[in-house]
């Protein structure tokens, strides 16, 4: 009887666990930092979006047992905001629940996991001016994060680099803005003059 109950209990627990892990969200604090990630920018280096490149390298921490990465299927490398760029900006907030986390908003690359790898990334033109670090998540077959690695420390204060984003401005826009503004004002003056002339008549 007790055996039946304990089997049922285990089955139930397993069921809850399976359902939980497929429905529930992953929490960053549950992840282990099993990867070692390095990126080419030196601490405090300034890079330009659309022009400069970042080379990211990642590998599994060699001091871990060999079976640690059995479930690792893909590596997702992301560009993440440093705390100084998150301050007073709620849309970049760090949340423990990875579904709600907004720290890492730019995808550098997604690759099949092969123990180690590297990628040369040209900083996308939509990356804004801010301070960043690089983080890599390893995910399983169902895209659930299992572990991570990052170029900075736990407090995200060391080894950060800056990116200067594009302004989006063009000379043609400047000229158009000037012309249309001038046209509007001149049109008004034109009608004023016409009014005055009509009134004189």
């Amino acid at each position, binding site marked *: 009887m007790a055996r039946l109950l304990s089997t049922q209990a285990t089955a139930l627990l397993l069921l809850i666990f399976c359902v939980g892990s497929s429905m529930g969200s992953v929490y960053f604090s549950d992840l282990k930092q099993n990867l070692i990630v390095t990126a080419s920018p030196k601490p405090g280096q300034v890079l330009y979006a659309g022009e400069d490149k970042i080379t990211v390298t990642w590998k599994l921490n060699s001091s871990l047992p060999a079976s640690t990465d059995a479930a690792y299927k893909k590596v997702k490398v992301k560009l993440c905001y440093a705390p100084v760029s998150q301050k007073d*900006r709620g849309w970049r907030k760090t949340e423990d629940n990875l579904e709600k986390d907004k720290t890492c908003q730019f995808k550098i690359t997604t690759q099949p996991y092969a123990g180690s790898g590297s990628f040369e990334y040209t900083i996308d033109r939509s990356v*804004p*001016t801010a301070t960043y670090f690089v983080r890599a998540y390893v995910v399983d077959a169902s895209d659930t994060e299992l572990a991570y690695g990052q170029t900075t420390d736990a407090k995200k204060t060391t080894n950060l680099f800056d990116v200067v984003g594009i302004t989006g401005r063009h000379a043609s*826009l400047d000229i158009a*803005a000037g012309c*249309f503004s001038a*046209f509007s004002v001149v*049109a008004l003056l034109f009608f004023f003059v016409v009014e005055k002339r009509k*009134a004189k008549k």
Partner: protein
Amino acid sequence: MEEQKKPSSLQIESVAASDNKHFKVPVDSEHKATVFWIFSFAAPHMRAFHLSWFSFFCCFVSTFAAPPLLPVIRDNLGLTRTDIGNAGIASVSGAVFARLTMGTACDLVGPRLASASLILLTTPAVYCTSIINSASTYLLARFFTGFSLASFVSCQFWMSSMFSAPKVGSANGVAAGWGNLGGGATQLIMPLVYELIHNAIGSTKFTAWRIAFFVPGLMQTAAGIAVVALGQDLPDGNYQKLEKAGDKHKDSFSKVFYHAVTNHRAWILALTYGYCFGVELTIDNIIAEYFYDRFDVNLRNAGMIAASFGLANIFSRPAGGWFSDLLSKRYGMRGRLWGLWLVQSFGGVLCIILGLMDSLAAAISVMLLFSVFVQASCGLSFGIVPFVSRRSLGLISGMTGGGGNVGAVLTQLIFFQGSRYSTQKGIALMGVMILACTLPTMLIYFPQWGGMLVGPRPNATEEDYYAAEWSQKERDSGCHSASLKFAENSVSERGKRRDPSTTVPVDTTPSHV
């Protein structure tokens, strides 16, 4: 000249021998339209209506063009939450003084030139939003663009000059409501234009939003030119022409100013308007973020919810104006005052409830109901404003309008800046403030019509009230003739019970001098 028996709604066909004017709509003795045919474009009355609401709509589109694109703009310019909040306050604070100036300008040079000048002179701010590069230039762009909201005053002034007392509430309500619609429409227009430019044309994010700003800019330029080219100040002509012909007295700023600031009703309406329109502006600035943060909807859905608040204006503000006119038919000015107090107070109650709603569906439902009542209150307010003064109508419209913006600035500063109150608590407290600031409606009193709690004085007349704004000397030289005509036509504000027939007596038929 024929003197016909006048029907009760003052429909008089004007057959001025001197300039042979035939209006396409029925008019009263001031040649103001006594009907409001929304789908007509007949000059000058209905044409003025369409020019007025559309140009005001364009100003609203421009002023609130940035908020829906903020997710892109804030990254391009490196904005912080504080920067965004400050710019939001700046966008509505510029119009405080602009509305007062606009009011005076309307009194002195007429609504057509005043609004066209404002609209065309603020377009550079809209175009230059495409070339800004920092938090401070963002704030300046929104600040100067916000000045264009003062076109509200010229819009209301123009409607009050073109439409007769029984219809002025509806005309004001529809014009302002359809104008305010711009605040909701822009939340749909700007993201659409942005996506078109970003996806179809392929510009990068940070360029696409800049190009998108040319759309509100061009709309505004076109509207401004249309107003000055096609519009007309008064049913009989433009200010300059009428002043030259001696048909209109050219007034002085100091007199207009004096009679506006010494009228207690103007100040009370400025306060109450701050707590209907001011609340509407505040909600325009904070509601998308509120739904995004509290109920976890995505940004696009938050934008659509925000848009629906502003879009309710298409019928709710006009409904307020129409309701004011309806109450006035039966109960006169007292009806208009009670209507305002009841509708706005109920809006305050709904606001408190909105802050307390915990589920998304409930919050959206309450918000929609709240939007109807708050916007209807705006319409009801401008059913009353045209009667407060004739001489200083422009400046008083400006004071009321400016009061609306002051309310928005104050409310955002007290309840939605920093982290003293959570947004939901701020919304609930804003509701309490609406209730408190609507109470002074009880203090508005017209000797000839009464107030909410007190009846009219036995021998007070409309003529006395409006002529009192002119000195004896001015009256002797006949400067106040326009006010007298208005006084005659405003007798309808006594309601049905006191004056069974609102016909104009035969001996005061507009003679064709």
